[in-house]
């Protein structure tokens, strides 16, 4: 079918959601570099950060081809209200239980989003998500193994993980905040839509957590806002830090 302007706007919105999530969570993950509870975990979060920032670059490049500014400009010169990431990814890393649960919720959603997009009619996105799909497998395996282990670690580990699950679940649902273009994205075969993605995610995440012995607050109301540029007080300080070097000399060559 012919793409109208609204289809392209919807596609750009989808790409911004994905790229901004990856950039912001990639930055947060990198904050564990040097601080992980054990060396392997330090490396794991650092590697996942590198994957996410790399993936965000590939998506910003697609946006650039669709007429948006170049990746560095997009990543380093916007203010918080111009970011389309969900609020969950912008929270500080917190304690390790918090970071692990966020990692579990987010990476399962991304794995399913990539999987769905391997069938998008927009070829550049189809190609990169086929690539990302192989990379994210290691992220979900890592998340699963820790969620499982800490459910059976000690009384304290189980309580802390459960608390983070309860705290983060409404924000996790916020990942699937509908866009203004759901209809256009679905009718054109660009994307299955946020509601369908959320259902696939629930079908994976809920039984997995229950099998580890956790309870899932499935009746919680989603906390929306991020996709429309409404953010918590945590995003702007993150952006200030991330862009500090760039702002000193925007024309510097690397």
């Amino acid at each position, binding site marked *: 079918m012919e793409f109208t302007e609204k289809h392209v706007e919807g596609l750009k919105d989808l790409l911004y959601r994905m790229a901004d999530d990856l950039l912001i969570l990639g930055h947060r993950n990198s904050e564990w570099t040097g601080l992980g509870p054990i060396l*392997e975990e330090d*490396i*794991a979060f*650092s*590697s*996942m950060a*590198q*994957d*996410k*920032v*790399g*993936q965000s*670059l*590939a998506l910003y490049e697609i946006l650039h081809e669709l007429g948006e500014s170049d990746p560095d400009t997009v990543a380093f010169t916007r203010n918080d209200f111009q970011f389309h990431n969900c609020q969950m990814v912008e929270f500080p890393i917190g304690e390790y239980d918090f970071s692990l649960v966020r990692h579990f919720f987010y990476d399962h959603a991304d794995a399913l989003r990539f999987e769905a997009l391997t069938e998008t009619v927009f070829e*550049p996105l189809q*190609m*990169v998500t*086929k*690539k*990302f799909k*192989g*990379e994210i*497998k*290691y992220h979900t*395996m*890592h998340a699963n*193994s820790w969620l499982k282990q800490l459910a059976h670690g000690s009384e304290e580990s189980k309580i802390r993980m459960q608390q983070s699950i309860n705290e983060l679940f409404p924000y996790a649902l916020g990942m699937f905040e509908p866009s203004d273009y759901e209809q256009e994205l679905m009718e054109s075969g660009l994307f299955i839509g946020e509601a369908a993605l959320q259902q696939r995610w629930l079908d994976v995440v809920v039984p997995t957590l229950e099998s580890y012995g956790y309870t899932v607050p499935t009746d919680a109301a989603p906390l929306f806002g991020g996709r429309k540029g409404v953010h918590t007080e945590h995003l702007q300080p993150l952006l200030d830090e991330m862009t500090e070097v760039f702002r000193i000399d925007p024309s510097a060559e690397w």
Partner: protein
Amino acid sequence: MDTSARIKAILETVMDPEIPTISLVDLGIVTKIKSRAAQHAYVQLTPTFSGCPALRVMEELVRDALTDAGFQEIEVETSFETQWNTNLISEKGRAALLKHGLAPPVKHEGYIELDVLSDTPCPLCNSRNTTLQSPFGPTLCRSLHYCNNCRNAFEGFKPI
């Protein structure tokens, strides 16, 4: 030798910047070679990992090697058109990884679980009595292992 074959032969001498025993061709990241004139070379590369920082270096290395060989019009492009996976590493490439002390990736059918990595043979003593310590290693393409037989830590090139 036609020009495309000549370009390929040149790329077989361009080594991975992080693993100097393996060429870009054996690594499987050279996905297209074209030439429309004797001095023209087009090379398409595909990233091993989206976040691989060596990618830009590889593009430069290719450009330099082709320049040295006398090509005047050189196009090097990175594309996700072909998605790289470790099954694309040639037999020669697998031997080259081993020579560098890295366990070659387990061959797979696209379905990878942690069990697959737990089965990685030790590159030093060949024992299969090894333990996966972490699927994340010093670079995105490597995993960390321990050999219970010769009691050495080793790295593997992880299957993707």
